[in-house]
């Protein structure tokens, strides 16, 4: 647009505010017209990102109460007690759009942002998990994004010294043009140090410390610049934010020292919305106001406009409420850590956020109007036509689900799956991360959930992130519910009890009824699953407008779970442990191949729905495996997820170097038995003498148990027993053997090389 064209559009629209929203603003500031600066502040605070104006009503339906919850949604991070006066803080957040523009800095600042949410509460960050989603790995742009994002996550996390212990890497065509970069952080704190983001006590000082304020990340509101400047030199206001992990490290140490020494009344990090957001939120939470002295804010650049200073998203900054008699000590701490620090305002009792410069008041807005009283939209959702409901678990398997008539034998399919971009080893990614700094990593990335010991106790924290866009695309409710089930299952099979759920809801444009319906369904699935599994939702983040010219992303509810293992000595891993151990499958296979890795590989437009989820069964399964582990009956436990039973067995073999000889009863369809991804199933191994007790215990929990075979040898053998097998073989002109037999070395090779090949890092 030319300046001329722009000037015909009223400013509020150019700032992305609708006319109704402008009316609501006028109404909130007492009937007068807001000035340009105030409008800029509203435009940022009423953005979807800061205000949750489309999702708020839905999020209210999530279950948030739970055992030991100390802080829930609304705070910077969820906090749950873990005993001994300790608590864990955790939260997941998206940095999708910045990463699409500048992958390295987008991902790096994403890590920085979520870490600040953790230490703002008084917790020392102890782990990061990165859940990444991209388009086709063969596409050049995608490869550029993967490389940049992974370098960015590592470049930041490695430097601040927080181990990256887990995450996800998923390729799906729907993410082309709109990758997902969701980062979860976990912190540990002494419960009595819990610090909230509020600015209590009129008369207290508002202190800004950390990096100076520059023009970065002004993004949308920079149209104001063209309104205020005669000439608009874009290079003057870059919207790309650059992260400084060293500054973040200093910020972590300084913030934790301030909290330990009781020098701050409240602490808030600066993220989206910059100073405007941090001050209005802390004032609103405390029921106070804040008077900002604009001229006191340390700047990185000369002649910045007031709106630039107030909404800049310069990274690595914190804002504290400090008692006047503590100021000297606060300054001393910040200076020792080499951080600029300044008093930028005072806490007042008028409930307003006011901005003054050179004695002139530039803005005055009720703090709550910018935050808790921001506009909320009741959007309308509508389901797309003809979708297929998932078959309920228990429905007998449809014989039409079968290996495609391409002479594929199951061994070849298994190798193809293990070497596929979505299932192959993620080592080439997580090797670029420091996963052991902190010297608490008991189980790092690569094999199911991450495990961190809690020093000075017998306990350990267990974490996993999971999402399921493939099923989500077919059924957003089921996709979200399955993600909760898988993430909690990954935690439970180590023996740990899931404490809470954090979530990142990645969806499309909420003004499109179908996209909003997907969000509604996702939240419903999330809520139902959390209720059924008895885990509270303690926090999360919503990322909407994930659309590109190519269309909207597959609805993706990314789930992060943290669990507590009371005695780390009882930890159980997913890899086989010893020759001769018995292998049992706990849980039943149910029909449905849609949304599976097998369906994607076979390219078969599988006409059945995705497999259904019975939440009561899932809950029983997780309770059962936790009890079995606590009683010392279990040698290894591996959940059946991507690639189905065959891949679960193959992974356990590759990770241990031990083969296995198994026999799977095929009711109807070998494809469903071997590669189906129906949930609520675990491959468990145990010493033979424990098998009866384990079987009994599982049955007591109402779970079906099928003995599969024994661990040992140097190859994985899966015999297909029963009518289904031979039947299928004949139909296929006996091109498929009734037994799958692959050397573990071959499985390992496929698994090791799949990802580098897919990304063109190796040929």
């Amino acid at each position, binding site marked *: 647009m030319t300046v001329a064209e722009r000037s015909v559009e009223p400013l509020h629209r150019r700032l992305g505010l609708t006319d109704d929203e402008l009316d609501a603003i006028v109404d909130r500031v007492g009937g007068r017209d807001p000035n340009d600066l105030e409008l800029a502040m509203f435009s940022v605070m009423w953005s979807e990102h800061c205000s949750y104006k489309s999702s708020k009503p839905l999020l209210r339906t999530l279950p948030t109460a739970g055992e030991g919850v100390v802080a829930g949604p609304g705070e910077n991070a969820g906090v749950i007690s873990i005993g001994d006066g300790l608590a864990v803080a955790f939260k997941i957040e998206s940095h999708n759009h910045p990463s699409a*523009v*500048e992958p390295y*800095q987008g991902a790096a600042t994403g890590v920085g942002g979520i870490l600040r949410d953790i230490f703002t509460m008084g917790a020392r960050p102890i782990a990061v998990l990165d859940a990444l989603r991209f388009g086709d790995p063969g596409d050049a742009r995608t490869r550029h994004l993967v490389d940049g994002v992974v370098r960015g996550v590592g470049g930041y996390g490695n430097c601040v010294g927080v181990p990256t212990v887990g995450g996800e890497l998923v390729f799906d065509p729907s993410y082309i043009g709109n990758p997902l970069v969701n980062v979860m952080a976990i912190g540990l704190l002494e419960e009595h140090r819990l610090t909230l983001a509020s600015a209590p006590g009129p008369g207290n000082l508002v202190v800004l410390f950390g*990096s100076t304020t*520059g*023009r*970065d990340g002004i993004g949308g509101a920079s149209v104001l610049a063209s309104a205020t400047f005669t000439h608009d030199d874009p*290079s*003057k*206001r*870059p919207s*790309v*934010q*650059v*992260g*400084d*992990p*060293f*500054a973040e490290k200093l910020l972590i140490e300084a913030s934790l020292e301030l909290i330990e020494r009781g020098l701050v009344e409240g602490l808030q990090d600066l993220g989206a919305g910059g100073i405007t957001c941090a001050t209005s939120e802390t004032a609103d939470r405390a029921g106070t106001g804040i008077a900002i002295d604009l001229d006191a804010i340390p700047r*990185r*650049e000369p002649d910045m406009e007031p709106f630039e200073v107030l909404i800049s998203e*310069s*990274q690595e900054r914190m804002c504290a409420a400090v008692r006047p008699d503590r100021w000297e000590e606060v300054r001393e701490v910040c200076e020792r850590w*080499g951080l600029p620090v300044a008093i930028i305002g005072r806490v007042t009792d008028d409930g307003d956020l006011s901005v003054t410069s050179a004695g002139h008041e530039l803005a005055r807005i009720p703090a709550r109007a910018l935050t808790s009283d921001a506009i909320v939209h009741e959007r309308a959702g509508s389901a797309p036509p003809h979708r297929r409901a998932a078959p309920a678990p228990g429905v007998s398997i449809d014989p039409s689900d079968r290996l495609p008539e391409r002479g594929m034998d199951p061994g070849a399919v298994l190798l193809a799956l293990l070497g596929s971009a979505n299932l192959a080893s993620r080592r080439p990614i997580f090797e670029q991360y420091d996963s052991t700094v902190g010297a608490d990593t008991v189980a790092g990335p690569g094999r199911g959930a991450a495990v961190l010991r809690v020093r000075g106790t017998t306990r350990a924290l267990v974490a996993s992130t999971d999402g399921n866009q493939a099923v989500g695309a077919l059924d957003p409710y089921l996709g979200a519910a399955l993600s909760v089930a898988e993430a909690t299952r990954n935690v439970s099979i180590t023996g740990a009890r899931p404490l809470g759920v954090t979530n990142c809801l990645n969806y499309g444009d909420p003004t499109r009824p179908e996209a909003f319906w997907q969000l509604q369904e996702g939240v419903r699935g999330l809520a139902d699953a959390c209720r059924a599994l008895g885990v509270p939702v303690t926090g999360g983040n919503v990322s909407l407008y994930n659309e590109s010219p190519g269309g909207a992303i597959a609805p993706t509810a990314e789930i992060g779970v943290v669990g507590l293992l009371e005695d780390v000595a009882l930890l159980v891993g997913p890899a086989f442990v010893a020759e001769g151990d018995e292998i049992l499958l706990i849980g039943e296979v149910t029909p449905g191949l849609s949304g599976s890795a097998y369906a994607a590989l076979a390219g078969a437009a599988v006409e059945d729905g995705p497999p259904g989820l019975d939440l009561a069964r899932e809950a029983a399964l997780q309770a059962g495996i936790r009890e079995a582990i606590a009683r010392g009956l279990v040698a290894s436990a591996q959940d059946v997820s991507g690639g189905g039973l065959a891949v679960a067995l193959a992974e356990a073999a590759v990770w241990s170097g031990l083969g296995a000889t198994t026999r799977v009863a095929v009711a109807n369809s070998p494809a469903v038995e071997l590669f189906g991804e129906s949930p609520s199933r675990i491959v468990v191994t145990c010493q033979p003498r424990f098998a009866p007790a384990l079987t009994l215990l599982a049955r007591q929990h109402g779970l079906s148990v099928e003995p599969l075979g024994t661990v040992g040898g140097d190859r994985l053998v899966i015999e297909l027993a029963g009518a289904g097998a031979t039947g299928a073989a004949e139909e296929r002109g006996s091109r498929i053997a009734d037994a799958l037999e692959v050397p573990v070395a071959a499985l390992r090779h496929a698994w090791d090389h799949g990802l580098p090949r897919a990304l063109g890092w190796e040929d």
Partner: protein
Amino acid sequence: MSIHRYAVNVTPKPGILDPQGRAVEGSLGHLGIEGVSAIRVGRRVEMTVDAADEAAARAVVERLAAELLANPLIEAYAIESIGGIA
């Protein structure tokens, strides 16, 4: 054909945070160095180009700089001729 040597200087755009430069500035005190400010740290890439003529050579460098060496979102670049060799 003629052979030329070029350097491409890549520096952070004005307004873009330069953590490297800040880190160096932070260390000046320790070195007891005074009067140095506005430090920007970038990359310098030197190369030999074999092309029909000076103009063709520069065009190649221009492309390399724009497409590979600099990230246009946050970096600016300048091309410097450091001697043609026959």
